[in-house]
Structures are given as C-alpha cells and as structure tokens.
C-alpha cells in the first residue's frame, strides 16, 4: 500500500501536525518570557534574530513563494528605516513612523514593480540589485529631512534603556509572528496559489487566467511592506541611521542565506534559518575572533550541501524515513 501514497511535503500540508504545533507554542512561550532573564547582550542578539525572521519572511514571499529572485530586497529595509526616521524627525510619534515605514515600502514596490516585474527571471534579479545603490544616491541627494550623507538622528525615547529595549524586542517578536502568519495565510489564499503557479510555470499560469503581472506586484508589495516594518523598528532601536547602514547590501544577502538554509517557500523555514544563522554566527564570532568569517562561511557551505532544499525539507525527509522504518503511519 505504501507505494501508492505519495504525500505532499509537510511544509505544504494545509495544517501542521500536532508535534509542530507543540513546538511552535513552546517556542513562543520561551521567546515570550526570555527578556525577563537574559543579559542585555543576548536580548540584543535575540532582537536581531527576530528582525531577521521578519526580513526573511518578506523575502520568502517574493523569492520562496513566487520564485522571483529579488537580490536587492534589502532596499525596502532602508526605505522603511528612512520613512520611519523622517516621520519622527518631523515630530510625528513612533507608531506613525512604523506605519509610514510599511506603507512607503509597499508603495515603492508597487511603483517599481509595475515596470520591472515584467522582466522575467534573472533580469528582474539584476534590476533589483541596482536599487540599493540608487537608493543610497537618492537619500544623499535629497538631504533635508533625511539628513543626507550626514545620517539622521531619531528623537530619543523618554523611556529607560532596559524597558525600551524589551519593548523593541516584543515589537520584533510580534512582527515575526505576523510576518509568519502572513506567509501561512497567503499559501492558503487564491493569491498564494497564483504565486506558486507563477513560480512553477508562468506561461501555464497566464493561460489559466492569472494576471501574472498583478499577482507578482502584489507579492512584492507584501514583501516590501513586511521588510519595511523591520527597517522602521530597527531605525528607532539604533536611533541613528545613515545611507550606508540602512541600505547595507549585507542585510539582503544575510536574509537570502537564511532563506536558503531554512527552506524556500515554506512557512517555518525562514524562522529556523534566521535562528540558526544568527545564533551560530554569534557563537562563532565569540569563539573565534580571528577567523569567524572563514568558519561561518565553511559552516554555511556544509549546511547547503547537507540540506540543499533547506533544513525544513531535510527534517521532513528524516521524519518520513523514521516513520517508515518504525512502521507507524
């Protein structure tokens, strides 16, 4: 009987198995109480991890689900940071700044996506790479409220540092949960079906009635809005932003690695990828000050060779073979 049953990969099953739900609940509880007992150093690390969960989920929408390689997606992190920073520098509250970060980033993707998402495959990937460089130039030229080349200092909070950093941690946690929920919902919605169809065969998707350009632009706007949120909160967290830090291409590259080692197009892959890469790189950095880049690079290569479709996929494979070996259905 077992040879007639070919089941969809677990990541695409409509509902998670109980074990995975259990792990999610435990994980959220641990993350929920973590700020009570950890050092400022680890609070900062965990906040960074959660920030990267958000960025990687944003990337997952356009790269993992839609199959459009937006190498320059990190640009929306910078757009979000500058949207939030400029609003706050103009005297608006932080909440308005974060909303602006989401809205302006999504709007930029809508406007840019309409022409460049007509490019297929690699051409789109290359077009997005140019965006980071263009954005740095634009911020420097605008000057004024963006601070230009001198950078932009955001108004300081009246809160004590510890409660402020804990609040930012929870904001990033909420963002990570919402971003993951967006990906999970999207995969169940008609738009998600359209995007997965485009990833597998854009030509077939079009003749089956999908307005492919519109679907891709929607996906990129969602991706950009999610990424912009992370940028907006980040700007307030570090309180001083400049073009080279906000539009650091390294942000997008790191999210890409996290997406690949976690598992493209899956719901939990980006979460796992962000945790694994950020925590491993922190530990390596702490243990090998001289050669941490080299060791990290080797580790990434090893993970990619051992789990070419991501940790989620490798885990599902192991679980399947374990079940078939132990006979339980």
């Amino acid at each position, binding site marked *: 009987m077992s040879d007639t049953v070919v089941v969809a990969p677990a990541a695409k099953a409509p509902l998670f198995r109980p074990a995975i739900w259990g792990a999610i609940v435990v994980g959220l509880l641990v993350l929920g109480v973590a700020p009570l007992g950890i050092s400022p150093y680890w609070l900062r690390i965990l906040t960074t991890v959660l920030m990267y969960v958000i960025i990687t989920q944003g990337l997952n929408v356009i790269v993992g689900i839609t199959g459009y390689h937006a190498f320059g997606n990190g640009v929306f992190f910078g757009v979000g940071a500058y949207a939030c920073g400029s609003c706050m520098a103009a005297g608006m509250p932080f909440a308005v700044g974060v909303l602006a970060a989401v809205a302006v980033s999504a709007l930029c993707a809508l406007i840019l996506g309409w022409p460049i998402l007509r490019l297929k495959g690699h051409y789109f990937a290359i077009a997005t790479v140019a965006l980071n460089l263009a954005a740095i130039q634009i911020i420097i030229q605008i000057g004024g409220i963006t601070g230009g080349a001198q950078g932009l200092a955001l108004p300081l909070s009246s809160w004590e540092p510890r409660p402020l950093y804990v609040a930012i941690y929870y904001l990033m946690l909420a963002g990570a949960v919402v971003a993951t929920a967006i990906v999970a919902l999207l995969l169940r919605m008609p738009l998600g079906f359209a995007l997965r169809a485009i990833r597998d065969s854009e030509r*077939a998707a079009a*003749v*089956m*009635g999908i307005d492919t350009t519109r679907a891709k632009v929607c996906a990129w706007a969602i991706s950009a809005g999610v990424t912009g949120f992370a940028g907006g909160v980040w700007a307030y967290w570090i309180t001083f932003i400049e073009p080279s830090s906000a539009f650091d291409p390294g942000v997008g590259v790191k999210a890409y690695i996290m997406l690949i080692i976690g598992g493209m197009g899956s719901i939990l892959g980006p979460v796992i990828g962000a945790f694994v890469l950020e925590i491993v790189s922190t530990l390596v950095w702490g243990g090998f000050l001289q050669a941490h880049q080299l060791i990290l690079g080797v580790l990434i290569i090893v993970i990619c060779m051992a789990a070419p479709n991501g940790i989620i996929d490798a885990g599902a494979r192991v679980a399947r073979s374990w079940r078939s070996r132990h006979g339980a259905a």
Partner: protein
Amino acid sequence: MALLEARDLTIRFGGVLAIDKISFDVEAGHIFGVIGPNGAGKTTLLNAISSVYRLDAGHLAFDGADVTNMVSHRLSRLGVARTFQIVQPFNHMTVRENVAVGAMYGHAQLRQRSEYLDAADQALRRVGLIAKAQFMPPHLTLSDRKRLEVARALAMKPRLLLLDEVMAGLNHTEIERTIELVREIAATGITVIVIEHVMKAVLALCDRVMVLNFGRKLTEGRPHDVIDEPAVVEAYLGTRFAKSRAGSAA
C-alpha cells in the same frame, strides 16, 4: 454564428512565416481538428488563438467579440482554455491544487475554498485522476500528466477547449480512453479544437478538419473527405496510408 472566427492569422518569427493568413470558423459544439506535418504551424496556431503569441496580422473573434491580441488571462476568463503539448504542471503543488488553480482563475472564477476544491475533484473524476489527487506531478506517468493538463483546463469551465496533442506518446488503451473523454467533454456542450497526429482519433472525433502545411492552410472539410484529397496525402499522410485505407475499404 461561429464561436471562434479566425481571419488571416499571421505570425512571423524573424523572416519565417510560422503561420500565414490562416482563416477558419469553429462552430459552437463542434470538434474541430487541426492536422499537418511537423513544423506546419499547428502549435503556433494554438499559441495564436490562446494569446501566448501576439499576432503580426489578422483578426480573432470569440463569441462575436474581437479578442485580437487580448492578454492571455483575460481571454481565459472569457472561456478559452488550453493544454500544452509539452506538459506544464505546477510541480510543487499537488495534483488537486494544480486543478484548483484553474477553478479559481479561469472562466469559473470560484474563490471559496470548498467551491474550488469541489470543482477540482469533479474535473479529476472526469479525467480519471481522482485517486492521485494528493500526488505531486513529478510522480505521475506521462499519460497521467496529460490528463492533469486536461483536468486543469476543464476546471476552468471553458466554452472553448484547445487540446494540443493530448494523445501523443500514449498507448492504444490510453488513446481509446482519451477519445472517449474528448467525446464526453464535447457532449457537455464545450467546443473543442484538437491538434492531433493520431489519425484514428481525428477520424473518430472531428466534425471538421483543417490541414496545415508550411504555415499555410492546405484545405478544410469533413474528415473523410479531407484525407482523400491528393494534396493532403502527398503533404502529410503519405501514399502508404492512402493505400491501406483503400485496401481496408475494398
């Protein structure tokens, strides 16, 4: 009135005329066959009708409305569905999800989860693929993948269905089954255009047949009349086919 009216359809690839001033009408409810040697322009013609390629000249009307160079997704919402000769499954989605996409975005436009999944199961039952609804397409045989193409198109609730060599590469039993399936589809009122090399199927199914050669229309008519024309025998069928027919008729 004809459901599909094609006038002087022309497509150029560089200096080559892939199809050259092809005109024909497809009556509602008919099965219309397109035959011809490899490279005659059959698939290009289908790509022209389904707006995968843009026309360099000519006009296309569907149900009385001008649809010349209308974008693919709008044409399919009007009720034109097609299969691909080289199958194009969505490999990372289950068979059922593949077909559900057709129900969501085709002429049917079903947006409720229960509705589009029901429509998908209905189409899968019709092509005999329901037992493999949870499979991933790479695990299907070629014959099943061809049936998946048909199921996806059916789930769109089309008025005009374009079948591009759905029988190529199938064995005798599978061909018999597919002929029966196409007949059932036509019986539900869907107009069908078939591109096919399997002459048995063309003769069994088609109300009218058009023969293409070197991008031009050679002739058109009832299947049994068309295959007796000397020009068709020479260009496509070959004298052996004509002799074997004459032999079996005698």
